[in-house]
Structure formats: structure tokens, C-alpha cells
């Protein structure tokens, strides 16, 4: 920070930007200034509106009110191409590559180096790609197709793409989520060199150490609104957390104490080549067991295999003593297993269907009489759950797309709780939902455990893991590297195990 004291003119700024989707106010009167030669952090909880903000800067969304200024002049980005022309490069959270095309083409699509006759100069393109990877210090074959690249490598290709722009403004939406320590360091070196070259970098991360290590200023958002902007040097982690959450963290997790009962789930030697190996654990009635680890550690894959959506290649899954057949979700459901999946929109809900149809999708047969479904029965069943979970919805016959993220998650929960499971698996149960609903979900999980349901929770949010779980299982690269009792689990012990730094100890 002290290396860059003079307040340079903003390269890009947002002034009073608001954006709504239906009834959801994703952004409300947000302002932000990105100055030349700074790395600017954007912090906020999931659902605070960061990704929407990024999409406004990228020209994907047009703001309802307010505007984007580039170099002091108001600009209307009608399309991503406009933003690119204005020198804005964006690395999205989810990589946006063309699986069928080569890595080099992915980097230079639309801007391939040309030779005589406006033909693409493949050699130059290949060399330029190699040059970019050399700067990043990684080896990726520019000629291989993007299909099959790991998430980390896809992210690196995205970074190389952004570097190839020579952009004035670089936006990185959680670029480090899937990167290892060395890769993160390299990325930081790149970001610093861009900054020193006079570019502005907007850096979004949930990792506070990264924010404090890398960034010059930090802007905090909460619930779609702007909270504050300060030099990083003037803040502590506690200040930052306080601004993001807006209340005391400990109040968020009302975990009841429950004496665990019979073992409900037993997993032994579960494995699938290249994904996870030798996974074994158990969950007892009334217990909340968290599965922690970094993104890509194989947690979701394990719970999917337990539920039977994916097949496993070795090992067994037993629920209340009976072995579940491999790859048969219907059998798992019959045995009382429910899975609230990670990706709400792709896996949890059929977005085009109505709220009530989604909520009753798992109970089609039990609601039917003589094989026939009556609308009234479906409506009644859905309405009962909507009330129990305090669903905020217009009409239950509306499509689920009309709901906010938190209420969509409630529909997923309703859909699964309606099956009266004895084992509830929740994968990132509070991802992308607002703070209020988050607390409701936590209370609900705790209450369910109190009623003797076994809960297995995959979560990437450490406070959630530490606050909710009776036991914490930590995964690293497809294996369980630690099992920590509630008393032993701290941010440090979990992170160590998650990054594999203590091997199989702990």
C-alpha cells in the first residue's frame, strides 16, 4: 500500500449501480473505484452480489440504474465484447473454455495472430501461448484440447487469456479456489507485475490471508449493498469479518447438543480410480458429521457415490446395516438416504418446473393413488412444506426460477425432508444464500439432528464446519486425512489436514 500513495485517477468505476432479477435485488446502489496501479479486493459472503457485480463490469449484465465509467467517462457495455474493447479482462469463477478447441485457440479466440492474407498464424499463436505459460511458470501443451483439463489448469488457461489482452483492468473472481500454494504464488506475482505496469486488478477471494498479503484496498459488500472501502493496512481480519457478516459470527450456529444413537451410515474402503480412494467413515443417528477439505478434494464425489448417483469401483456403503446396491439412487432413497446436492440449479432443482412439482418430485409415488397423481394432493403436500420452512414465494405454481437462492434451497430441502430420511446428506447447504436464510438452514439441520436424523454435511466454509459439526472428516486429494472431534477441530487443524501438510497424522 505504502508503495502506491498517490491517488491515481480511477481506470474504471461503478456509480450507484443496481440490478434486480425478478424479485431478487442482486445489487443495490453499489459504487466502486478501481485505480491504476492498485490491487483491489472485493469481499463479501456468498450471495452478497459479488458475482453479479463482476458480470456488470464484464458487460454481461446491464445495470438497471447507475452506470459504469471507464477513464472517467460513462460507458454502456452492451455486450462482453464492449468491455473487452475497453480493456477489461475477466477471469470468471467457472472457467468458460471451448472443450473442443486447443488450449492456444482458447486463449486467442477472436484475436489470433495473423499472417499474410489474414490467415491465422498457428506457429505464432502457439509460441505466444507458450510464452504466457512460461510467464505463469506452468507447462500446458498449447495444442491439446481444453476438454479434460483439470479445473486448476482451466483456471490457468483463463489467466493466460486475460494476460494476453494486456488489459488495463483485470477482474479475478475467486481465481485461487482450485489452485495449489505454488500456483497461487505465481498468480500473485503476475497480479503484482500487472499492477506495477499500471493496471488495476479487482481480486475476489474468501481467503483473508490472500487479501491481506496481496491487496492494497478492500471493498466490502453485504446482501447486494455496498458497505465500505478502506486501505487494507487500516483493517484487521476481525474488522473485515464484522463488516461482511454484520453481526457476531458465533450467533450464527445454534448447534444443539445431542447424544448420538445407532450407527446409520457405514462407508468402508470406498474408491473410484482417479477420484477418491479408501474412504471409510460412519455417521450415527443424531450426529452432524462434516466433510471438509479444499475444492476438488473429492468430497462431493464421495457423497454422490454414497447416494448412488455415481458408481464406485470398490468398497461398500451400508445404511442401518444393509448394503446399498452400487449406483442406484432409488435404492438409497428407499433405505432412507437423502442428498441435497452441491449445485442447486443443475442438480437440486428442475428450474423450469413449478415450486410444487419440484417439492413433490421425490414423492411422486407415495402421493399417488392407484398410480394416479392428483394436483390437489401435490399442492397440499407442497404447501405444507412451504409453510414449515417459511418459504417466501408468490404462488407455488410459479417456476422455481422466480425464487431467491435461499428460497430455492428451501425447496430442495423440502423435497428431501418430505421423504422422511434417516440419513440426510447436504452438500454445501448454504452456498450462495443470504445470511438470514443461512441461519435458518443451520437451525433446521441442528433440529433434524436433534430428532435423531444422521446428518452428513459437505462444506467449504470453515465457520460452518466448526460451528455445526460433532465430528469433522477432512479430505485431501481423494483421501480422508484426518478425523477431528468437535473439541479438536480448529481452523488451523482443519486447514492443515485439508492441504495435506500433516500427511496422515492428526
Amino acid at each position, binding site marked *: 500500500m505504502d508503495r502506491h500513495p498517490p491517488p491515481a485517477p480511477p481506470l474504471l468505476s461503478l456509480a450507484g449501480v443496481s440490478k434486480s*432479477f*425478478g*424479485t*431478487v435485488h*442482486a445489487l443495490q446502489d453499489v459504487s466502486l473505484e478501481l485505480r491504476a496501479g492498485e490491487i483491489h479486493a472485493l469481499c463479501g459472503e*456468498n*450471495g452478497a452480489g*459479488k*458475482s*453479479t457485480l463482476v*458480470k456488470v463490469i464484464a458487460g454481461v*449484465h*446491464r445495470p*438497471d*440504474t447507475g*452506470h459504469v465509467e471507464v477513464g472517467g467517462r*460513462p460507458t*454502456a457495455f*452492451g455486450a462482453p465484447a464492449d468491455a473487452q474493447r475497453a480493456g477489461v479482462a475477466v477471469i470468471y*469463477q467457472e472457467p468458460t473454455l471451448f472443450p473442443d478447441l486447443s488450449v492456444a485457440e482458447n486463449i486467442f479466440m477472436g484475436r489470433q495472430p495473423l499472417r499474410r492474407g489474414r490467415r491465422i498464424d498457428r506457429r505464432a499463436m502457439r509460441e505466444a501461448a507458450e510464452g504466457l505459460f512460461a510467464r505463469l511458470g506452468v507447462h500446458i501443451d498449447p495444442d491439446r484440447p481444453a476438454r479434460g483439463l483439470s479445473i486448476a489448469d482451466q483456471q490457468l488457461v483463463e489467466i493466460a487469456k486475460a494476460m494476453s489482452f494486456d488489459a488495463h483492468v483485470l477482474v479475478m473472481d*475467486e481465481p485461487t*479456489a482450485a489452485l495449489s500454494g505454488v500456483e497461487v504464488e505465481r498468480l500473485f506475482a503476475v497480479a503484482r507485475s500487472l499492477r506495477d505496469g499500471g493496471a488495476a486488478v479487482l481480486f475476489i477471494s*474468501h481467503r483473508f490471508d490472500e487479501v491481506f498479503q496481496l491487496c492494497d484496498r478492500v471493498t466490502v459488500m453485504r446482501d447486494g449493498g455496498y458497505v465500505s472501502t478502506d486501505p487494507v493496512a487500516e483493517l484487521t481480519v476481525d474488522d473485515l469479518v464484522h463488516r461482511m457478516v454484520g453481526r457476531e459470527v458465533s450467533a450464527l450456529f445454534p448447534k444443539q447438543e445431542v447424544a448420538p444413537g445407532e450407527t446409520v451410515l457405514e462407508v468402508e474402503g470406498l474408491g473410484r480410480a482417479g477420484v477418491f480412494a479408501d474412504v471409510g467413515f460412519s455417521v450415527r443417528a443424531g450426529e452432524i458429521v462434516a466433510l471438509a477439505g*479444499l*475444492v476438488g478434494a473429492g468430497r462431493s464425489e464421495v457423497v454422490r457415490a454414497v447416494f448412488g*448417483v455415481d458408481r464406485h469401483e470398490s468398497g461398500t456403503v451400508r445404511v442401518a446395516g444393509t448394503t446399498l446396491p452400487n449406483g442406484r*439412487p*432409488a435404492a*438409497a*432413497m428407499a433405505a432412507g438416504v437423502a*442428498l441435497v*446436492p452441491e*449445485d442447486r*440449479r*443443475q*442438480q437440486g*432443482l*428442475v*428450474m*423450469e*418446473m413449478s415450486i410444487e*412439482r419440484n417439492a*413433490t*418430485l*421425490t414423492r*411422486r409415488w407415495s402421493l*399417488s393413488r392407484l398410480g*394416479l*397423481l*392428483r394436483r390437489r394432493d401435490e399442492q397440499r403436500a407442497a404447501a405444507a412444506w412451504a409453510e414449515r420452512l417459511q418459504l417466501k414465494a408468490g404462488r407455488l405454481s*410459479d*417456476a422455481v*426460477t*422466480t425464487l431467491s*437462492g435461499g428460497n430455492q434451497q428451501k425447496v430442495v430441502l423440502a423435497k428431501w425432508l418430505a421423504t422422511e430420511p434417516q440419513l440426510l446428506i447436504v452438500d*454445501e447447504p448454504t*452456498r*450462495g444464500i443470504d445470511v438470514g436464510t443461512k441461519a435458518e438452514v443451520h437451525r433446521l439441520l441442528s433440529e433434524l439432528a436433534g430428532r435423531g436424523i444422521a446428518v452428513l454435511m459437505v462444506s*467449504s466454509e*470453515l465457520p460452518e464446519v466448526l460451528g455445526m459439526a460433532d465430528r469433522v472428516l477432512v479430505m485431501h486429494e481423494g483421501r480422508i486425512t484426518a478425523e477431528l472431534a468437535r473439541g479438536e477441530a480448529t481452523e488451523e487443524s482443519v486447514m492443515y489436514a485439508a492441504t495435506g501438510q500433516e500427511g496422515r497424522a492428526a
Partner: protein
Amino acid sequence: MGPEVDDPTTSAAAAPPERPAPTARVGAVGSAGSALRSLLRTREASIVGVLVASVLGASLMVDGFATGRNAGFLILDVTAIALIALPMTLVIITGEIDLSVASTLGLTSAVMGQLWVAGLPLEAIVPLCVLLGSALGALNGLLVTVAGLPSLAVTIGSMAMYRGLAYVVLGDRAVADFPFSWTGGATARLPGTDVPWIALLIAVLAVVFGILLHATPVGRSLYAIGSNDEATRFSGISVRWTKLWLFVVSGTVAAGAGVFWTLQYGSARADNAFGLELSVVAAVLLGGVSIFGGRGALVGVLAGVLLLGTIRNALMLADVSSDVLDIVTGLLLVVSVVLPTTLARVRERRPRPAPPS
């Protein structure tokens, strides 16, 4: 620290651009909006309306249209399309397609002819042929579900193969010496009316398929599969198994239609019903079923089938060359998809505030 998704439009933005967004239900504003919305919501109602209008129009303007005799002919004309359209609707609602149906019909017909020549009694031939159709459908289904191949490509392949096998079985011969008790029986009318008995069968099957699609757990899962097969799998529904069965049903019904076709026209030929698959698909799409799956109703499809049949019949009676039929069919199909999407887009654009200048 996990990736965050807090943008309600992500899924819509990530969908392929040619997929029309489910705009019909999202936040309509104002009275113009709600009027449009009701119009859009009732694709089926509008196609039924067009059907009623054309039947009325044809009755008033075309001599000989509004007779029981003619209605009987009309029904016999559309029988094959109507039968095959029933399972096709289900297949398309799950997001798949079966282009091999007309070839299945042709192969069934050829086999029927060959077996008759070989001296088997029709009592044995008919069930064998229907079973053959189930097997042909199962082959399609296995290639789609087990091998994971796109049904569009698979059924283009099996369309060529089944038609080819029909030629292998029967060559370019025609077998036409089926007993009159069968051929006449196929087109027999219900006692005391001009209505062919097959109309009753179609009606019964339509009700069965309609209930299956709209009022059973299976039907619910078909829509869910077509909208998002991953979420459906996560709900414990076996997507593969369901699709496999649909292809089997599709093949079986096509074979049944083949048997009927052969008896109706009294002729088993390898090229029977050549090109019929596109007529069936056209009728289904005209009836408001989304080619991407997840949306559509059986009422609309039946109206679509009858509409095409009515127009053809009326044009023929009015001595208008049947060429116009192709133009009308194509135009209806294009308009039926262009109009709603365009209207929806116009409406979507209107309430949006002008961008700041």
C-alpha cells in the same frame, strides 16, 4: 471459500442461446403482459382454436367436407401419424427424438408380407411383427441409454438401417393378397356409424397416454428428464431406464401402425410410409411440444395431427393441388415456433428501462 454462485440468471445465461428462456411465467408486467402471457401459456389452446376454425371454415367452404363419410376417411388418413405421434410426444418431452419410426413401420410391413408369403397365419404374424417393433425400439433405446449416443444421430442411422432391412426382406415386391376379412376389417366402421373402429382405438390410446403423461408419477418424471436430466437423476429417477422404455414403446407402436397400414392399404411394401417420420415430428412440434424437451401437452399434439389431416383433406376435396399442403404445413410449423418466441422477446424488451447514456 468455495465457488460462489449468487446470480439468479446464471443458469439461463449458460444455456445454449437457441434455447428460448422459459419466459412465459417470469414476471409479466401490466395488462398487455398478462394478456400475452395467457396467450403464450395456452399454446395448446391456440392450436385447438386453429383446428376448430379450420374445421368450421372447411365445413362452410368445401363441399362434401362435413359428412360422416369424409370424416371417416380423414381419420383413416391420419391413423398412422396419430398412433406414432403418441409415443413420439413422450420421447420428445424427455428431450430425445426417434426418427426411425417410419422405417420401423416399413420393416414391419415387409416382414409381414414375407411371413404371409411363407404361409404363416396372420394370427401369428401380427404379434410377431409387433414384437419385432419392440426389439427395434429397444435397439435404439440401448444405443441411446447404454452407449450414451445422441438419439438424433442414432435414429438417423437406424432409420436408414431398418428401411434397408425392409428392402432386404421384401425387395421391391409388393405382397397384396391378404384376405379381405383382414383388410376390410381394418377399415371397418363401427356399427351404425361412419366412424372407423380404429378411431376408437386411437381415442383409447390417447387417453392412456394422456393420463400417463399428465397424471402419473411417470409423466412427472418425463417432464423433469426433459428439463434437466441431471437434477432428475439426483431425485432418484432412473433416466436411462425411462428413456429405454420410451424407445421400446415407440418401436412397438410404430410396428402396430405398420400392421395396420399394411392391412388398410392391403399391400406390404418396403417403402411403406417413407418420410412419415418428419410428418409425425412436425405434428408433434406443431402441437406445442418443445424440441428441447420438458414442455408440451398431448391435447396439443392431437390437435396438431388433426389440423394437418383436416387441411390435407379439405384441400383435396376443394381440388386445390396437394402441393399447397406442404407449404401450409411448413408455414404453420415455422409460425408456431417463431411467433411465441418473438412475442416473448418483444415483451421482455419493453419493461426494461433505457440504459443510461
